[in-house]
Structures are given as C-alpha cells and as structure tokens.
C-alpha cells in the first residue's frame, strides 16, 4: 500500500490530534503523541493495510495514547479518564505478569492480541460504541467482542468495578 504521509497528514492530521486530545487531555502531550502516530505509520508503511486510512490512524492514535497513559502518574479527571488508565494498565499487566504462571495464562487468554482487546475496551467503555458498533469497527463478531470484554472484566477486577 502506498502510504503517502503528507496526504495522510493533510487529510487526517486534525482527526488524529482530536483523538489524542480526547484521550490524553493535555494539548502539549496530544500534539506530541500526534507526531508519534504518523511516525508509527511511516515505520510500518511497508506492511500496513491502509485501505481505510482514517480507521488505521484512529486505531494507531488510540494505542499510542494508551501507551503514554500507562506511564502517567496524574490523578484521573473523571470516570472515563479512570477507565482509560485501567485499560492502559492492561498492557503492562499482561507484559509484567508473563513471568508468572497466572500471567502466562492471562497472556494466553488474550490469544496474542492484547492490543485489540485494549482497543475494544476503549471503544466500548470510553467512546461508548455499542457492541455491534465495536464489532463493525474491529472486524469481529458481536459475540467475539462480548467474549473479549467478559474475559477482561473477569481477569482485571479494576475494570469490572469501574464498569459495574
């Protein structure tokens, strides 16, 4: 796929910045993350399926921001913000716990796709997409999305508490 980063930026740069603003809630951090989103696209341009550039960029922006939030030490501003922190932490829990038996089981539960599970969680719990809408966006069945979310809530009590 011919990734034309200039065309991508002109057409979708503002959308990426809005996404980063929404997730990071800090203008300077959002601008910084926006640049990194396009760096990620450039870095993987030979292997990306960029047939839906906006979807690709929104997804990449979500992952970049979640990785930033993982290292944040600020206090969540509201329930959505708190949920984002929980979801962001999911990746590090998966990675850190792979050294333990429980962690390895957890890792297996996510079938090597913790990134898409985090995206599903953000779309449903933070962006308020319905299960059907999430399924349409990530290319899974509704039952597949429901199963991922159920697994996430069972294994990470913080998420279950925040959504109850």
């Amino acid at each position, binding site marked *: 796929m011919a990734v034309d980063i200039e065309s991508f930026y002109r057409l979708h740069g503002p959308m990426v910045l809005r996404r980063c603003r929404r997730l990071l809630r800090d203008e300077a951090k959002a601008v910084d993350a926006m640049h990194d989103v396009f760096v990620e696209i450039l870095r993987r341009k030979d292997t990306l399926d960029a047939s839906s550039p*906006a979807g690709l960029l929104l997804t990449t922006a979500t992952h970049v921001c979640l990785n930033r939030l993982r290292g944040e030490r600020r206090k969540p501003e509201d329930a959505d913000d708190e949920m984002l922190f929980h979801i962001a932490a999911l990746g590090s829990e998966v990675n850190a716990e792979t050294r333990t038996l429980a962690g390895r089981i957890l890792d297996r539960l996510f079938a090597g796709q913790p990134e898409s599970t985090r995206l599903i969680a953000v779309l449903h719990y933070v962006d308020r997409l319905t299960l059907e809408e999430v399924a349409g966006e990530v290319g899974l069945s509704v039952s597949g999305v429901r199963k991922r979310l159920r697994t996430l809530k069972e294994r990470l009590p913080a998420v279950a508490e925040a959504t109850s």
Partner: protein
Amino acid sequence: MKTTDKQVPDWLVERLAAGELPEARANELRARLRAHGEEYRLSALANSNAEILAALPPERALPEIRRRADRRQRNAPRPARVWWALSMVTAGAAAFAMIFAVREHKGSRTPDRVSESEQAENISFKGDLKPVLRIYRKSAAGAEALRPGAKVHQGDTLQIRYVAAGRRFGIIASIDARGAVTLHLPEAPGKAVALERDGERALPHAYELDDSPGFERFVFVTADTPFESTDVVRALESGDALPAALSSFDLSLRKEKP
C-alpha cells in the same frame, strides 16, 4: 435503548466524515445525526480541521515527523534497514521496468502524467497532494494493496479506490496490452464523474482481470472542469497526449500467466 436512539459517538462521526464507511452504514449514521439535530457535528469537524491545519500546517508537522522517524530508523537493528533499502531498490526497478514496457507499447507519453518512478518516490516524501489511484486485490485473507508493477493474474478481482485530492471531475480507465480500453468510472462512455473530493473512495464494483497478457495500465484522469470519457479513451487508444486541461495518474500492473 435502541442503537438508533443513541447519540453517535465521536469515533463514528470521524469515520463518517472521512468517507470510509460503507454507504448503508454512512446513511444510517447521517439519519441518527439528523434525528438528534446534530448534523452540525460534521461541519464542526471541517472547521476544526481548518483550525488545526492553520495552527499545525504540514510544513511544520511533517519535518518533525520525518525527523523522529529518521531517528528511530537510525536506532533500528541494521538488518531491517538493509531489508528496507533492498525493498525500495526492488520496487524502483520494477517500476522502471513497467514504465519501459508501457512506453514501448504506446510509443509516446502523456506530458502531464505522473511517472511510476515518481509515484514510487512520492510514497511519502515529496510533492503537493495529488490525485492518486489505489488498487487492492481481493483475497481470502482480505485485501492486498498492489504497488506499481505488482504481479497479477487472470481472474484476480481488483478493488479500485481513488483519492481526488480536491479535484472536481474524474475518469478511471484501464488499457491492456491488446489495446482494449475499459471504463471503470463511469462504467459507460459519457461525462466525467463528479468526484468525492476528500478521503479515499472505492468504486462501486470490483474488476476481474481477463486473459489479456502483459500488463494492465490504470489511469485516473482528473480536472476541475467537466470533460468527456471520449477524450480519455481516444488518448489511451492512440497513445497521444491528453488535452492540456487534464492531468492523470498512472498505475500499471504486470500480468503473469497462472
């Protein structure tokens, strides 16, 4: 609460504005926006786009993006860099071979055409935003993006998409090695189609390659004023230049026997 009663999430409004959703889905979301009296959210995005691009124009953002990408590439493991360089050389050689083949076949070249080697260079780094064609091959795993010079076969099903980059009218056609011209947009001779001017847009129908050997050259001809498909078909069949008011983007695929 039914889905249709819900406010449309920002994520989906962005996807709608980008023009990437299937038509039925897009119509449903527009209806939901209308039902909530929120059609303004689409125009608000357009205003926000203009504000952000004014504050962070490409001239400022792109050098920073490339600087960061260069820095990461310098820090990347060396074999990956070698692979990347080799792939670029291979792509360049393939593009050069295709240009040579097309020139030999047609005997002339449209002056305003963007060459494939220029397109390969343009993958990410140079030039103003230009109309482009993107072609995907349907496969069991989904869709495979095809680069200029990619190998294709009889029976392959291709999805053609375009980015108008602001151009108002366009025609997409292809010519094979036998000189047969096929119109893809519009699908019958007539006036150039009013293009969707933003985002990447798919043509309504996929295209199955026939048994013509050699190559299939796709051409996206655009202009800001109306024109006729006969102008394009005549130029493709004769190898003559397109009228000066028209510009074109070429993408050729190499057809191989199965």
